[in-house]
């Protein structure tokens, strides 16, 4: 496009994804406007944006979920379009509709598509109707007695999910009939709490499945393409931590079948903008439609790195009315890309979130690396937001090179002041099963013992102890107190 698609775009998000979107806006010559809770007035995305508007709420998250304030901010700044990022309001059909009604452009799908895909049941029904395989299931209900009776009949293991849920929240695996009642009760109560919708449903649980998803782009007029698949099987707490593209060792015919199924869904939905169709793939080669995410994914950079396509730019151009030629072939792919999610969490304590402060941040740079973050030294890391702090993405001519480059980069990444999963990610990438591409969503627990923190060698421990002591004021005082006449203790840290 010769003229910028929009003069100004407001980003209804925070953190790394807001920074990521601003980078593309800058490259396209489009002005950017950020929103932020007052607690984040000094955040990186606020500093990167051309201008920023404070939004308020009982909690910081509530501010980013307040569509009316965000639309008002867009109007006040003269933005012509809103990019929702991921999470928050990105899959809120009501918000997408309100943006349009306010005379602005929503950089995402039509609100009707968001509503269709946002409800797992209507999404499954839609997929099944066009011949895309879905796993045997029980339809959602709030009637727990009816639910447990019908769920028991389709057999175990079963996966219980919130009908309105997403991101793995409120999902429970039930392996025996006697656990069903309690699990259903808990799932329904969590569903009501988090999604204000107590309906739950259950489906056949595929043991040790792979999570394969396909990136699609549509122009809303029937033009759709897929940008190949991603493998997101390495997960903890039902949430992805390592993603890669392409999926390792996927038989070409199966890869084609899965991508074709995704394309069929996008085509049938006359999909507009970027979306992702998620599948689970069993060890037997059977695959089932999981859901469609009607937004940019956290892991979109791995697709960008193997295709060379800037997905945010594509989103903006499509939102501005660009058409995709019908029957466009999928772009060629080059090499292999891996993404690691850097999270404030303790892998030794079942990945529980951690709080702290970014005391020190240093990251490696190389042509084959991307470090996506919204961090500032001194920033507090609290329970206010998701524990994901940043993403590190590596590319290589082949998977092995991408893995080795990622391990090297993770070793160089210094993010101190809060417990993170950085060292854990190194152990996952270096595990023989990961290197062999032997992946499934139970990888983290199946290899739990091998992935546990190995004991430090005695000398390395002693070195760490010496450095820690040198960093202690109390130790410095002790050294000074050690009676020796010619002391010149100028080496203590500032």
């Amino acid at each position, binding site marked *: 496009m010769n003229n910028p698609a929009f003069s100004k775009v407001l980003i209804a998000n925070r953190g790394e994804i807001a920074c990521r979107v601003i980078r593309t806006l800058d490259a396209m010559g489009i002005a950017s406007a950020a929103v932020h809770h007052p607690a984040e007035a000094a955040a990186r995305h606020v500093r990167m944006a051309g201008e920023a508007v404070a939004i308020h709420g009982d909690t910081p998250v509530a501010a980013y979920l307040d569509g009316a304030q965000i639309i008002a901010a867009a109007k006040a700044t003269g933005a012509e379009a809103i990019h929702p990022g991921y999470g928050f309001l990105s899959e809120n059909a009501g918000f997408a509709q309100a943006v349009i009604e306010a005379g602005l452009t929503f950089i995402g799908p039509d609100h009707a598509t968001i509503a269709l895909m946002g409800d797992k049941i209507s999404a499954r029904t839609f997929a099944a109707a066009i011949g895309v395989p879905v796993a045997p299931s029980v339809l959602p209900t709030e009637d727990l007695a009816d639910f447990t009776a019908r769920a028991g009949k389709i057999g175990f293991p079963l996966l219980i999910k919130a009908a309105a849920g997403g991101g793995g929240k*409120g999902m429970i695996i039930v392996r025996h009939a006697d656990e069903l009642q309690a699990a259903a009760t808990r799932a329904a109560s969590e569903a009501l709490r988090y999604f204000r919708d107590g309906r739950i449903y259950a489906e056949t649980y595929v043991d040790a499945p792979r999570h394969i998803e396909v990136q699609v782009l549509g122009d809303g007029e029937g033009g759709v393409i897929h940008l190949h698949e991603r493998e997101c099987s390495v997960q903890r707490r039902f949430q992805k931590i390592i993603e890669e593209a392409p999926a390792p060792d996927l038989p070409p015919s199966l890869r084609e079948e899965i991508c074709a199924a995704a394309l069929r869904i996008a085509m049938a939905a006359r999909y507009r903008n970027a979306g992702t169709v998620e599948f689970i793939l069993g060890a037997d080669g059977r695959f089932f439609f999981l859901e469609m995410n009607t937004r940019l994914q956290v892991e979109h950079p791995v697709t960008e790195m193997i295709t060379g396509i800037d997905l945010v730019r594509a989103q903006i151009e499509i939102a501005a009315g660009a058409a995709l030629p019908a029957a466009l072939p999928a772009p060629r792919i080059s090499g292999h890309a891996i993404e690691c999610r850097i999270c404030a969490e303790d892998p030794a304590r079942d990945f529980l979130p951690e709080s702290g402060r970014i005391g020190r941040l240093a990251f490696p740079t190389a042509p084959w690396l991307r470090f996506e973050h919204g961090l500032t030294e001194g920033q507090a890391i609290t329970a206010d937001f*998701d524990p994901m702090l940043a993403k590190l993405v590596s590319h290589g001519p082949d998977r092995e090179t991408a893995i080795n480059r990622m391990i090297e980069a993770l070793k160089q990444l210094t993010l101190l002041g809060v417990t993170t999963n950085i060292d854990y990610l190194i152990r996952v990438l270096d595990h023989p099963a990961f290197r062999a591409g032997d992946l499934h969503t139970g990888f983290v627990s199946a290899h739990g013992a091998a992935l546990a923190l190995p004991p430090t060698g005695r000398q390395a421990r*002693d070195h760490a102890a010496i450095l820690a002591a040198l960093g202690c004021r109390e130790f410095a005082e002790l050294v000074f107190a050690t009676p020796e006449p010619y002391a010149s203790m100028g080496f203590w840290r500032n």
Partner: protein
Amino acid sequence: MPFTLLLDGEPCEIEILARQPRLLLAVNGRTYLVEPKAGDGMVRIDGETVAFARAEIGETQFLRIAGRTHVAQLARQGGAGGGGGSGVNAVKAPMPGLVIRVHKQAGEAVVRGEAVITIESMKLQMALNAPRDGVIATLLAEEGGSFDKDAVLALLVSLEGE
């Protein structure tokens, strides 16, 4: 007097053997010659250059050495004993989050394993249970309130006659 640190949760005793002409330290009895100023972010230990990064948050030091992160705290005199005791008596938050429900009020008796408080963090709910039988002496949690990791949310005292 040796200086004691908790390195990754384990005690390390460091003794200053000499500071001139070189700093000579003993770590758990093993001797090291230390040159603290080998460069920016570097020390030399027994002639070997060790690169590191450090950040101090509150009383905790985070160190990154050779692609591995360590956490160190000063072991306070008498602190370990007191901390251990309050650990048994305290209902502590394993992660930062919000208080969803308070099941027991101050003065109520609880048995070991009984839920005292339900918390939520990152949309996961978790019951915090009584670490032993006792009576809730102090309730520091309030429904809807937030807390940091390791915050004490309730304190127990022994049942009478114990």
